[in-house]
């Protein structure tokens, strides 16, 4: 057919363009662009009529404040802190109620299993394994998500997120990365896998890779509940009850800042070493402020985000609960498989201020960060703790009974913030970069950073005798 003919035409087009280039006709580009702009302006002037008497400067004023060198970052921090404060305060009560209800049901279910003389192991697997994990995931995660996500979507809808991106843009450029990375990073707050996909908006392969590799340093939906829960029960506990919620939300905001800091630092390091290059420029437009659509916000945050994340957590948590229960109850010698694993990890875990069970939980939690905490709780419970887990407070007691100190809590939060991304994110990374090598790097590099940070903190704290 005319395959060759087509190729010939293509060749000839190339020749024409090359000739034009040699003639220097490319200088006409500016002329072409300005012709378009002039005609657009001409038409607009004919059909648009503006009321000159009333000018709308308020949004410009607001932008000046929100993106100012001096007030931009403090305001960002305050808004973030306020959202977390709202989340922690609002989630406390419904979490307790949900936990009560769900664990009452557990009692009923146990009674039923007893009454039909079900074998002990079936009851263990289904109720103590699957159901209990699910109940924890739902009661710990649902209320904070139901508050946090609408707040987050509200900020997005109002147009505040692009201002955040604008504030961070300069920093990313300084780090040798693309300014658009501030946008992909903000997406990562929702879900790191989504953040990695969003990196497509960055054209330069070098900068796209940097953005992908560092996306997981900002906590995602799956990790916020963990961070919030730990901050609530521990950080809150240390400062006296009247300031506890305030301190907890401040602390989570602080963790987010650490995450952003690490993102910038690693981006900078990568662009100076493995991924050398000069950042390319782009213009970031600040979209107008819009009156948010409340119906849509509720819908988006409830259906798209809350239910999506929750159902993902549930889907992963059910089998994970089962596996964990089996690992925790199948004995080899006088110890469970889980305990063997934890025992094996213990020396290393102790070195970085965690314990073997925590490390096991993070490893088993690879499919989804949401289930790390539930797995950990189950591991501790199966060790024979007699605590009835029917409130958030009980979680704290369980952890303390297992030797947690403030250092352990801090380390768990930092590890959660910095460690390898979840399996979904890694898989997405592989798909988007097309490279197994970089995907492996994306898993190992954050883990090494997490371990080093924990090691340094732990050793310093222990040396100073603070715990």
């Amino acid at each position, binding site marked *: 057919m005319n*395959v060759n003919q087509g190729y010939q035409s293509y060749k000839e087009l190339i020749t024409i363009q090359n000739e034009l280039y040699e003639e220097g006709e490319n200088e006409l580009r500016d002329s072409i*662009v300005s012709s378009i702009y002039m005609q657009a*302006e001409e*038409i607009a002037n004919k059909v648009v*009529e503006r009321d000159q008497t009333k000018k709308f400067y308020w949004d410009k004023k607001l932008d000046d404040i929100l993106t100012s060198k001096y007030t931009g970052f403090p305001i960002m921090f305050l808004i973030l802190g306020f959202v977390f404060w709202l989340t922690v305060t609002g989630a406390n009560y419904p979490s307790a109620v949900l936990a009560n209800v769900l664990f009452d049901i557990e009692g009923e279910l146990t009674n039923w299993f007893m009454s039909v003389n079900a074998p002990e192991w079936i009851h263990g697997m289904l109720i103590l394994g699957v159901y209990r994990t699910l109940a924890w995931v739902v009661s710990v995660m649902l209320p904070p998500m139901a508050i946090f996500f609408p707040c987050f979507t509200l900020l997005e*809808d109002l147009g505040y*997120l692009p201002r955040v991106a604008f504030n961070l843009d300069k920093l990313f450029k300084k780090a040798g990365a693309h300014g658009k990375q501030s946008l992909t990073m903000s997406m990562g707050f929702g879900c790191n896998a989504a953040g990695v996909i969003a990196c*497509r908006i960055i054209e330069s392969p070098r900068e796209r890779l940097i953005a992908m590799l560092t996306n997981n340093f900002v906590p995602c939906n799956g990790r916020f509940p963990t961070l919030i829960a730990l901050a609530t029960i521990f950080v809150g506990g240390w400062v006296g009850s009247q300031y506890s919620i305030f301190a907890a939300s401040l602390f989570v905001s602080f963790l987010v800042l650490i995450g952003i800091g690490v993102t910038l630092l690693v981006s900078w390091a990568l662009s100076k070493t493995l991924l050398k290059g000069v950042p390319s420029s782009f213009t970031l437009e600040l979209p107008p402020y819009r009156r948010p659509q409340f119906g849509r916000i509720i819908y988006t945050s409830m259906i798209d985000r809350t239910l999506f994340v929750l159902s993902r957590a549930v889907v992963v948590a059910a089998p994970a609960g089962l596996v964990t229960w089996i690992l925790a109850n199948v004995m080899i010698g006088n110890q469970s498989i889980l305990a063997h694993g934890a025992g094996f990890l213990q020396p290393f875990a102790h070195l970085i201020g965690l314990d073997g069970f925590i490390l096991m939980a993070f490893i088993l939690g690879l499919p989804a960060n949401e289930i790390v905490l539930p797995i950990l709780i189950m591991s501790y419970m199966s060790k024979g703790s007699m605590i009835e887990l029917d409130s958030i407070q009980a979680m704290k007691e369980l952890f303390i009974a297992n030797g947690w100190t403030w250092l352990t809590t801090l380390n768990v939060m930092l590890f959660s913030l910095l460690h390898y991304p979840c399996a979904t994110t890694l898989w997405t990374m592989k798909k988007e970069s097309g490279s197994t090598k970089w995907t492996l790097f994306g898993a190992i590099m954050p883990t090494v950073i997490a371990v080093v940070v924990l090691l340094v903190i732990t050793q310093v704290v222990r040396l100073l005798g603070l715990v």
Partner: protein
Amino acid sequence: MSLMCKSCSKAVLNKKFNIKLNCHDDLVIALAGNPNVGKSTVFNALTGLNQHTGNWPGKTVENARGNYKHKDKKFVLVDLPGTYSLLANSVEEQVARDFICFGKPNATIVVTDATCLERNLNLVLQVMELTDKVILCVNLMDEAKRKKIKVDIKGLEKELGIPVVGTTARSGEGLQELMDQVYEIALGFQTTSPRPLVYTPDVEWKIEELTPKLVELLEGKLNPRWVALRLIEGDPTILDSIRNFLYDDKDSNAQEEVACIYEC
């Protein structure tokens, strides 16, 4: 590419843009526009889908698509990434340009923000240069009203030579009329006469010089004037796209097969 099967003109949609039509009669409509003009809101309002709308640029990376029915026809709406122009300065701009240029949608809706029409018109004029099946949707009319900005829709229609519809997609205002116009244009019941962009004499002269050769090379597959302009401005991406979309006949047979298995 043989002309055995006329409907195979839609094969490129399937193959290059992964758009599957259930039926030969489905009409493909592209949705273009600057970032943040409520494009996704228009998309959701028309298709009833819930593509996440966020108030920030760069949200739509891929082409999202959805369906709607109007009168007796089924439409496939393709939400292109938001762009300020089609000059292929970025991936988004290239994606949008390639879709309109090579995907040959039955019609293209350009969504604009009534409060900053001037900036938005650049894109409109560029799309009009590519295709005459264009409908302009001036969105966010409610905000323009609040800001006391008046847009003369009829005047704009006259200036541009294409149908113009004022909408407030959030409340659904004007969408019925938009769908009517799309229907008319896509099916060819109404034709447009887009105002041509005029360039400086040196550019125009160059275009004229290149046109005869381009007419011969392009065999009516692309608008020679438009290609001439791209060559003059030295756009490095256009030749790659031409090669990819027009001359990539390695598996042209397979392509026809794919296109011909649509069931009505």
